[in-house]
């Protein structure tokens, strides 16, 4: 079971945690990325192309 650590121990540890691990532990940043990446690459890019279809003569 989890035990609360002392504030200082936590502070020391958080300094040493590698950035990639911090990203993977940051659930809301992941949520943000997971929504923004497909929204831009799939939805917005797609909508942009559809809005540029020329009119037939």
């Amino acid at each position: 079971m989890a035990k609360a650590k002392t504030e200082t121990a936590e502070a020391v540890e958080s300094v040493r945690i590698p950035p990639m691990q911090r990203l993977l532990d940051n659930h809301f940043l992941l949520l943000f990325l997971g929504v923004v990446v497909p929204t831009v690459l799939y939805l917005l890019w797609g909508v942009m192309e559809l809005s540029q279809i020329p009119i037939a003569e």
Partner: protein
Amino acid sequence: MALTSPESKIWWNERIGRAELVWITIAFLWGVFMFSMMVWWHLEGNQNLSNEVYRIAPTKFEEKTEAFTEKYTVREEAGMPVAKPEPGAEVYMLSRLWEWWPILELKKGQTYRLHLSSMDWQHGFSLQPVNINIQVHPGLEHVVTLTPTQTGEFSVVCNEFCGVGHHTMVGRIHVVE
């Protein structure tokens, strides 16, 4: 284990096993290869879907198709006109509930610009038994460059669900020498 938090606090710095590294590298390179394959086929391959598309009112596409049919009709088949355009011509085929119109007669080895659109709902242009499948939308004129490489009688099956008559929607393309 997978159901509990990682045992070491800092797991990102753990060493990755050699076999795993090899596999990751192979999988990554295979992905790059498969991606390049699609790009390369656009440059060197002969089967790519055209990007030539226009917005058009269904009535206008119908007029164009009727004018095309009138110009090139050579005979009738099952009550439908058969259009035989000259090689290289602009060819029209429209889809509506539940037919592909008109019937086409093309020459083997000649290249045609086939214009596809729908009068009503979405339909699926499925050329059989060649097995070329293209989605057809109302309001969009899709111009596909097509070169038949076989002779014979080919059917255009609708493979997008378009209501109760969907399974009766069959068109025809003849390819002659």
